[in-house]
């Protein structure tokens, strides 16, 4: 995936300017920045939901005009169909990509097991907690074996504890099922935890302040939080964001 000189505008207002980013297969790029700096807008451009004012998004060399095949997205607000059960929500993503009914259901059950929702297959989203709804969202996104997974603050709508539980569970899942991922968050910890590389957004209109390589070893788990390198990167990101705030 490649963002080539992306400028995003809403009417007269420029949200972000001249963004260049590359994401290689198998890697995780985290984009971190304060709320309102245009992270979601950028991700929506990558998904082909909106068009940039200037610049091009390319995925496997193809300019994006609508969501390309093999790109899945996890939304901050889950984006589940309220009239479908957990199982049906997950299976639906497979069905519309051409998987036969029976195979789709089997794969859906497999993913439901993976995200720890066994026993809730027939529940409707409104009967589940936020954390469980997002597990469903994850299962749906992973079910199609995407070549690119877009995550828009996937744990942002959850309470602190649920958020932490799901973060580490997602890390574990990612290690067993690695997928190229663009991970947007305003949580610095999350960015350092997931990213092979971190793009720090700051300023108004926002731009990339710095691209930081995270050399923390994979696989990562909770113990990473206490390492000197984790803390050092975290501090650096924090300072970059703060500098942007002062401008």
């Amino acid at each position, binding site marked *: 995936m490649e963002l080539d000189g992306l400028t995003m505008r809403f009417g007269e207002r420029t949200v972000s300017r001249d963004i260049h980013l590359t994401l290689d297969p198998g890697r995780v790029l985290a984009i971190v920045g304060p709320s309102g700096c245009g992270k979601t807008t950028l991700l*929506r451009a990558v*998904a*082909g*939901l909106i068009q940039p004012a200037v610049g091009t998004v390319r995925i496997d060399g193809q300019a994006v005009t*609508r*969501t390309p*095949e093999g*790109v*899945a*997205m996890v*939304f901050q*607000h*889950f*984006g*589940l*169909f*309220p*009239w479908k059960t957990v199982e049906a929500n997950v299976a*639906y*993503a497979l069905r*519309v*990509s051409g998987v036969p009914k029976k195979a789709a259901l089997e794969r859906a059950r497999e993913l439901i097991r993976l995200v720890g929702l066994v026993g809730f297959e027939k529940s*409707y*989203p*409104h009967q589940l907690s936020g954390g469980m709804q997002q597990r469903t969202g994850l299962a749906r996104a992973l079910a199609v074996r995407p070549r690119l997974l877009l995550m828009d603050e996937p744990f942002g709508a959850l309470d602190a504890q649920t958020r932490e539980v799901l973060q580490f569970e997602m890390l574990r899942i990612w290690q067993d099922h690695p997928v190229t991922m663009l991970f947007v968050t305003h949580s610095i910890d999350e960015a350092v935890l997931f990213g092979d590389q971190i793009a720090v957004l700051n300023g108004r209109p926002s731009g990339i302040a710095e691209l930081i390589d995270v050399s923390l070893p994979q696989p990562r788990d909770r113990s990473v939080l206490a390492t000197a390198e984790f803390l050092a990167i975290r501090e650096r990101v924090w300072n970059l964001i703060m500098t942007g705030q002062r401008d």
Partner: protein
Amino acid sequence: MVSAPTRRPRNLAGWVGKLIVAALVVAVWEASVRLWLPDYLPTPSGVVRAAWPTLISADFGKAFGDTISGVAAGLLIGCLAGTALGLATGRLPWLRYLTSPYLSGLYAMPMLAIVPMATIWLGYSSQTRLAVIALSAFLPCAVSTGDGARNVPSQLRETAKVLRLSRVRFVLDVLLPSTLPFVVAGVQVAVGRALVGAVAVEFLASLPGLGTFILTNARSFEQNTAFVAVFVLAVLGIAARAGTETALHRLMPWHLHVNR
């Protein structure tokens, strides 16, 4: 869990309260007619006594059949057409732009106002009743469904785009289910308006049916009998409402959670 035991007595108290109020209303009604008012006025005991003979009488059966068949046919036509137009206006902005002044204008207008004209266009016939009922049902369905269809939550629109849904898939799998609660809401209003429309047309155009049954009996001082028909209409309205509510909860347990 903890609140369960305390809720039961409160429900029970609620029911007892309702029964007491009902008993009081009935008692005051009965007593005031017996003590002070002319005795051709209906009384609760009179209505109860008249109930069975009325319900099994051939006159009532015919009137009931006339009205109900008109209401059923009118509802079917009006709701289907209204829902279809509502879905279309929800998807096609130009159609909404062209039709919305008429839809909202007619929706706000009392249907009774057109009955005198309708009798001239369509005659003193059951066609007039059918037309008025169908129109009464059509409008709330078109308005409510239209509101629902153009307000598919943006989160679901985005999900649909990311899933690369075709137009047909979007309409069938996203637009229709997210609009369904609005369709049901439209139908609920339609049922009430259809019953009102039916009775009103029968009054104004002297068509055979429950409305005329009520009118004739009331005028011939058979007010208890007339009241039985009034209650039947009320029960029909309540039953339709309860039926659609139950269907909504059974078949669409998620219906309150579409727009958040």
